């Protein structure tokens, strides 16, 4: 004989501590809780509005440089350390939590062109217009001791870019050639050149660590394998790329910042067509850096703004600018995915939040739940016109706004001309209808 009794799990009604909120049993019957869609809609609306209200991305400005900031480097092991090099050859080490400069080095004569921290975080390299590569200790020297590099290599030509291998003691520089250096040697172990050109930047692939890519002045992006004696391939675009950045989670994607105001995400296996064209800037894009999650990247532009793009979207999700920020030369995304740092012409380094409305600091459980719920609501109702309008609204400085407008008009005019004049009056099939992705690649050289 089976006797059924009511049994309840004490977890359902017993509080863990007396400070817990009493659990109120609820009836989820939809008839008792009607109007779910309208109610959630209002909630979504409120969440969106709140997000805009709370969106205050600018955290701090680090001033101290006496010339324009030309390059920055993230510390590989410490989140709170940032290095920056200025156009007067000064290198500064910043403490981001305290917003102060901890160390200043007169590293080079002329520009500091590039900096990179060694993977172990004990030393960093800098290159400058004085044709030298200098290795510096990360720790500051004792009081009264002069700042001296651990190592100095004098090159034959000016170096313009620098990057370090993810795991080995090798680094790459670029100037008139792309050179691979062993840390122990004063001559490059390998140097690549393909035609006569000068390079503006070189970057190691952080995932497939033997691969490199560089941007050349002949409007091309060249791929290399450190182990090979030859470059792998290059793609020539309509305009020059300034820098590029590899996706740290997806080994075959990289994004390049182009002079034609756009950014292009490429799959390195298929260079014939970029995967995505990111277009929102209204002036040349000078720098780009991926978020460590590989889902987004930040770009710095000559138009005095930085933008954050989801990697698969054509348009940016965020634009940051301040009144005083001039042409942004360099930008970095912090290794914990929370901050963005930008260095600009007016000698300042700025610290931004990666998510403008995100609350920093420790969140209570309920805060977290609420944030998640709000985020979900925003996602759910993102297509509704009212919500969309609020969520997408950004204030822009006048020059960017007008220029953006101008660019849309110009683009439309160009399109119209192409379709109505060129295409219509040429032999059918002679002028193909090109998609945006196909327009910007001139050739792929094998």
């Amino acid at each position, binding site marked *: 004989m089976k006797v059924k009794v009511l049994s309840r799990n004490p977890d359902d009604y017993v509080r863990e501590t007396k400070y817990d909120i009493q659990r109120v049993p609820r009836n989820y019957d939809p008839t008792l809780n009607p109007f779910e869609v309208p109610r959630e809609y209002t909630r979504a609306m409120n969440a969106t509005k709140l997000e805009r209200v709370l969106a205050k991305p600018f955290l701090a400005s680090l001033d101290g440089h006496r010339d324009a900031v030309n390059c920055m480097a993230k510390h590989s092991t410490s989140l709170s350390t940032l290095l920056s090099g200025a156009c007067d050859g000064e290198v500064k080490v910043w403490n981001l939590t305290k917003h102060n400069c901890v160390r200043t080095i007169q590293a080079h004569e002329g520009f500091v062109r590039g900096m990179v921290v060694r993977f172990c975080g004990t030393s960093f390299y800098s290159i400058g217009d004085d044709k030298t590569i200098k290795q510096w200790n990360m720790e500051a020297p004792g009081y009264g001791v002069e700042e001296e590099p651990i190592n100095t290599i004098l090159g034959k030509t000016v170096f313009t870019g620098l990057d370090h291998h993810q795991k080995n003691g090798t680094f790459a520089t670029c100037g008139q050639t792309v050179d691979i250096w062993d840390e122990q040697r004063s001559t490059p172990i390998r140097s690549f050149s393909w035609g006569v050109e000068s390079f503006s930047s070189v970057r190691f692939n*952080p995932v497939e660590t033997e*691969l490199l890519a560089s941007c050349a002045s002949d409007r091309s992006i060249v791929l290399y394998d450190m182990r*090979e004696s030859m470059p792998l391939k290059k793609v020539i675009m309509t305009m020059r790329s300034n820098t590029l950045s590899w996706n740290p989670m997806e080994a075959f994607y990289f994004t390049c910042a182009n002079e034609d105001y756009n950014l292009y995400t490429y799959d390195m296996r298929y260079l014939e067509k970029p995967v995505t064209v990111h277009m929102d800037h209204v002036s040349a894009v000078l720098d780009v850096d991926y978020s460590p999650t590989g889902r987004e990247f930040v770009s710095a532009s000559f138009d005095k703004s930085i933008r954050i793009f989801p990697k698969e979207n054509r348009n940016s999700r965020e634009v940051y600018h301040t009144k005083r920020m001039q042409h942004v030369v360099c930008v970095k995304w912090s290794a914990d995915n929370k901050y963005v740092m930008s260095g600009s012409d007016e000698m300042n380094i700025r610290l931004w939040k990666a998510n403008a409305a995100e609350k920093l600091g420790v969140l209570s459980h309920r805060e977290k739940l609420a944030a998640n719920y709000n*985020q*979900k*609501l925003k996602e759910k109702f993102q297509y*509704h016109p009212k919500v969309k309008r609020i969520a997408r609204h950004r204030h822009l400085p006048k020059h960017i706004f007008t220029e953006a407008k101008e660019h849309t008009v110009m683009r439309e005019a160009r399109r119209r001309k192409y379709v109505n004049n060129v295409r219509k009056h040429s032999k059918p099939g002679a002028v193909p209808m090109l998609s945006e992705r196909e327009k910007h690649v001139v050739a792929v050289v094998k």
Partner: protein
Amino acid sequence: MAKILKKNKVSTKGTKKTLNKNTGTEKTPEKSSSAKRRERKRKTVGKLKGTLKTTKKSPIEKLDLDNVDEDELLNEGEEIIPSEDEGGSDDDRKHQKLLEAISALGGKKKRRLAERSEATIQISEFSVDAKGEGEKINLSDLIQTIAKTPAVSAQTKSHLKKLKLEEKTVDSPLTKPETERIQRNVAFQKSSEEVSRWQSIVKQNLKAEQLVFPLNQEAPGPKPLEQVVCGWKARTPLEQEIFRLLSVNKQPINDPVLTPIEEESLKAMSLEDAKIRRAELQKARALQSYYEAKARRERSIKSKKYHKVQNKAKRKEFVKKFDEMLKSDPVSALEELQKLELGRMKERMSLKHQNSGKWAKSKAIMAKYDDGARKAMQQQLEVNKDLTQKLATTLSDEEGEDDGETSEPDMLPDFVNEVEPGQDPANPWMRGQLSKDPVDLTEPSVPETAAAVLISEDEEEGPEETEEEGLLRGFAERRKQRQEQEAENEAAKNQDMEVMTEENKAGAEKAVASHDAADADIADDDEEEEEELSKFTNLFQELKDSRMEAEASAMVAEVSEPECAQLQQAMFRIKSLEDMDLLDQEEQADPAEPNAEAPQPAPLESKGADKKRKRKRGIDLAEVLTKEATVINVPLAPTAVEGAEGAAHGQEEQRDVIKEAFAGDDVISDFLKDKRREEEAGRPKVVDLTLPGWGEWGGQGLQPSKKKRRRFRLKTAPPPPRKDGGLASVIISEKRDSSVSMHQVGALPHPFLLPEQFEVTMRAPVGATWNTRQAVKKITMPKIVTKVGAIIQPMSRDDLLKHSRKQEEEGTAGEPKKRKAPQRKRSQKRHKKTKN
């Protein structure tokens, strides 16, 4: 001379040996370098011999030649040495010269290179041999040699020729840019392949519901002790003491902390496994209880018919299983057979179904007047008969062989015959089929109509059984035909037999006799033979049994059976050409019969058929539709015409299709109706607010006054004129509300393909007001979670390795799941069967 000869003799022995040896080496398949060399020498020697043979065959020469050979062998020299013995005696040289001259006369002249083979005193400083030492050299001699030697040797010529024929020139090396391009291409291919390894992990991360960065974090919670303890050493005396104790007791101290047994026990069953196992057990238990309950329920059912049907189904099942068993393991099949036999024995011993009990006797009295009682008795008998049915009959394959003698069917077993050997034909109980006698006794006058009804009932009950019946009947038919055929054949054969020689006849007779003996044996001891029944016979026995039942149940109505059999003749499968032939014959034979017998059951059946038709009909279009549908002539030709006809035809076809599709409905009138309906809906309605009884007398049959009605019937103001008022062929909906549309999504957003999908996602609430806590947690889970203050390293090769390993594991884990699936299916099937 004699001396030389002696020497030669001695040497010949050696040479002979070596020659033999040489021949030996020639035969052996593997040829070492020395062996080859030797062979070459042998050939040259052979050639020399040939030349000698052409001239003279003196023993000396032979010896000479042999000597040469030996010398060479001893020296392992590279070249052939002309025969030249010690001293350089004049005689010998002259002879040699003569030989040369003679050989020069003959067609081809072999040029021999002279070489010194022995140490001599007269060694010229130009390393010319001492051959023509004492002689003067004439100019003519020198010229002669020049004339004889060709400018280029034949060997080199042939080499050149070969080279010319081959004409393989090495390609000129590629230009530098080209080689570089190739190198680049190769390198790129390699690196792109390398990079492509990440594809799967990238995809997986994209699809992941949630990604927590940094990706490869150590699991939170307590770490295993081994890791923590690893670098730790006992320092204090207390610790040392403890460790000493531990080591004395053979407890693991450092690495690993767990004893092997403990570790094993930990590994033995993971929580998941345990859960799965428990779930399985639970399921099994539930199923068992379910089956038990079902069985109990079934047992408590009192309906006899139900049980009958059940039994029938079971028996069928059993037959099927038995067939399978015969194929799979005949041993167990045999056991099964024996069991049946035992059952039969028991039945024979008991009086259970013999209609001899009290009940049966009472029924027997009633049987005359009561159909039910009769039937019950009949059933009893039937059961008895079934149970006492002899399982096997005497039969073996040997019987089949002597068809000429016994005129029995060679293919079919005996029991298919009506007359069953080994059983007493006089005893009706022992027969496979209930004879008509008892029926006649119990029910002398059965109305045929009732019988017919019974048949129809039976047929409705079990259409399955007829199949077997049909099969058997088919066999019977075929057997008869074959017998006829064979009768003819026999006649022919007999004629042939006469031609045969007597010896043959005798032999044949012997064989026949032996067969006969065997037959007799078989007939005698059927019990022994029963155990060795072939598959075939068993099968037929089963089939026959089932047929018996069917026949018994439908026994009363045997009148209509032949007709039935005729109809079902086509039901057996045609498997061979013979069958086809037989079929033809049957068809020839048949046609008259069904015509003759068809009308009899027709009226009876027609009633039922009518009823069925009525039941099945459902909706009659003519009844439902008041308006007559226009009749369309649909072309009988297939709509899809292949190939040849061109586009014009296609167009026509298209039009036809459209016409066909829209032929039935009157589109225009429908549209107009719709429009009118829309207009009606938009028109203002009169609202009647009159309340009977207010201010007036109320009650049955009293209407509120006109005045009141006028006052309380409200007419709303007419709406603005419709936009589509002047447009005959347009309906413009005016339902759209601009105040609401502000909040509505205008176009279907990107990821959605159907408006329904979008609506569904919108309709499902995500908040805690409508969902449980867990559900909300799951729904609102963010896609990417990053920890504050944790550095997210780029993906490394270890991740790739881990990923691939995990995938492999999943792959291996996936297989057993797949394996499980069919099992479940099978169990379901079983389930269904039991339900039936």
